[in-house]
């Protein structure tokens, strides 16, 4: 064991390992020359054959690969796709000779980090492109790692905590049910605090479950919002009763392209939000839907206290809680989750609000394109667009 290790100074970047892939010997020579001028310390190597380049890249780590487009056997974009398979964050620069913008745009989608027309190749342009590509790839890696981190985090909460928290809530319910009747006022109070805390734990785990659900792209299908609204109404029924609230929704709700679980989550969050931040004697939420070209727009209108214009832009950001937790307890993530869920279904969500009078949340979803939907749509063609046309509203029978 050698204890007298040489310490490299951190500021000095290690020698860059660069690989040129081009079937023309002359081009390889020119590029090698320019790259060595751009990075005097770099280790510049070249390969004439994309298959050889692929083999070298699999065996060794390069900091950046610069490849020609037109090569026999495999073009530069195909090579990039192959290289990405084993090295997800390898910076790859496409050297185009045609200077074709379409080709380059396609290349960027195909996994190329950057492209550089050979006609503009210089030590300076190469240096800039290589540096930026390396930076871009390390940032992409950072983002992916953070996302993975976050997903693991939420996963742990949703799954690892789920079981013990269920145990807690179950035993709290058991003990409350048994003790409450005959207990002293103090014990009753303790049990109430215990139940409140336990049910809050359950809610937090729900939020996390919703969040983890959003980490995979959802399966999209035709979703009948009547079913969704019935289920939302069902799960919010205790809360609606407790608050003496009214929730009105269209008799014939539209069918949209989306995911039923996510739509339920979204509308439940929005209705809940509307009733929650609400001091009206009868808190009320009205759901209406209107057609806007290929889309349905679902409006969720409440008579709550509204949102000041300066906060409107922020309400979908995580943890923007406009009120203190004790006044209106909430996780502060409901709207963030709703927005995430809407975007995951290729929809859009926004809000308009009049402070003191209430807010309207709009969710725009692609209309379903099955036969039944076509029929429905035609029958509503008379509805003026884009002005809102209210669908028949049924008062909550409750």
């Amino acid at each position, binding site marked *: 064991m050698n204890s007298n290790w040489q310490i490299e100074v951190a500021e000095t970047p290690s020698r860059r390992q660069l690989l040129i892939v081009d079937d023309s010997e002359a081009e390889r020579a020119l590029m090698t020359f320019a790259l060595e001028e751009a990075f005097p310390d770099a280790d510049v190597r070249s390969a004439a054959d994309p298959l050889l380049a692929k083999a070298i890249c699999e065996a060794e780590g390069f900091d950046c690969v610069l490849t020609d487009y037109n090569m026999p056997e495999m073009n530069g974009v195909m090579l990039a796709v192959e290289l990405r398979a084993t090295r997800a964050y390898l910076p790859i620069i496409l050297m185009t000779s045609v200077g074709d913008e379409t080709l380059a745009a396609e290349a960027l989608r195909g996994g*190329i980090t950057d492209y550089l027309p050979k006609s503009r190749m210089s030590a300076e*342009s190469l240096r800039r492109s290589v540096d930026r590509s390396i930076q871009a790839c390390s940032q992409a890696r950072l983002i992916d790692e953070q996302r993975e981190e976050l997903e693991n985090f939420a996963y*742990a909460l949703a799954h690892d905590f789920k079981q013990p928290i269920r145990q807690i809530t179950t035993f709290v319910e058991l003990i409350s049910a048994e003790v409450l009747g005959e207990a*002293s006022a103090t014990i009753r109070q303790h*049990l109430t605090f215990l139940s409140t805390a336990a049910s809050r734990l359950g809610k*937090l785990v729900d939020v996390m479950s919703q969040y983890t659900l959003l980490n995979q792209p959802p399966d999209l299908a035709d979703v009948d919002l009547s079913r969704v609204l019935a289920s939302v109404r069902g799960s919010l029924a205790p809360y609606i009763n407790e608050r003496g609230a009214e929730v009105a929704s269209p008799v014939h709700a539209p069918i949209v392209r989306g995911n039923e679980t996510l739509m339920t989550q979204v509308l439940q969050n929005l209705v809940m939000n509307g009733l929650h931040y609400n001091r009206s004697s009868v808190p009320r939420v009205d759901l209406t839907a209107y057609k806007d070209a290929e889309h349905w727009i679902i409006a969720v209108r409440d008579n709550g206290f509204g949102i000041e214009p300066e906060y409107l832009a922020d309400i979908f950001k995580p943890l923007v809680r406009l009120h203190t937790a004790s006044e209106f307890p909430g996780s502060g993530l409901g709207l963030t989750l709703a927005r995430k869920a809407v975007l995951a279904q290729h929809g859009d969500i926004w809000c308009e609000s009049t402070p003191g009078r209430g807010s309207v949340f709009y969710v725009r979803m692609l209309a379903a394109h099955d036969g039944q939907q076509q029929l429905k749509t035609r029958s509503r063609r008379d509805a003026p667009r884009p002005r809102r046309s209210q669908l028949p509203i049924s008062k909550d029978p409750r």
Partner: protein
Amino acid sequence: MSNNLAIPDRERIDAAERELQAFSYIVSHDLAASFRQVAGFSQLLLSEFGDDLTSRQQTHACHIRTATDKCQSMLEQLLVLSRVQQKVLSVQCLDATAIAQLAEFRLSAEIRAAGAEVSIVALGEVLADPHLLAQAFDSLLDNAIKFRVAGVAPRIVIQGTQDADFWRLRISDNGPGVEPAYRDKAFGMFQRLNSEDAYAGVGAGLAICRRIARRHGGDARFVDSDDGACVELALPRAPILQ
């Protein structure tokens, strides 16, 4: 010229960070507060009104306490992980041997209790954040002591090698080892490869070590060893801070 670069913009990174922070916040505040209340009131019930409760009800209250304790330790470890993720790194040239000796000193009670023998071969110097490296050594040493074969005194060796790119610090033991198929899984958060009763802890140590190594641009993994398990902490000689 290079304007079309597929750069993930700063805004996206910031959004990811904000999200992470938002969730950490919920964990640290809302969940922790709720657990504290559940623990507190169930304890109160037991201590103040235990006599008024039937033995069945007392058992319920005990179950609540046990589940809450478990949640609280898991939460604590999640917060450690989150702090490791968010800490601003202060990378210094460190005597890794001294850091390992410090871990040995901090865990001396556990080492004595297990009858373990720890040898630290001169590790040389590394570029790392002193707090994070110390934390990594603590959990690796703690793991090596904890995962032992019954009746066999743990023998633990901490040593280092280097190559062109990395310093490789290795902690090897004579414990039961980890099958290659489970090696990657063991680094996941709350991944326990054994039944809950066999070994204490919530299964967060390796996940935290890997996070520490990755923040320095390195990695942590199991490497093959003749006997027991060997965890390698690879730290780049020119750290890419993350």
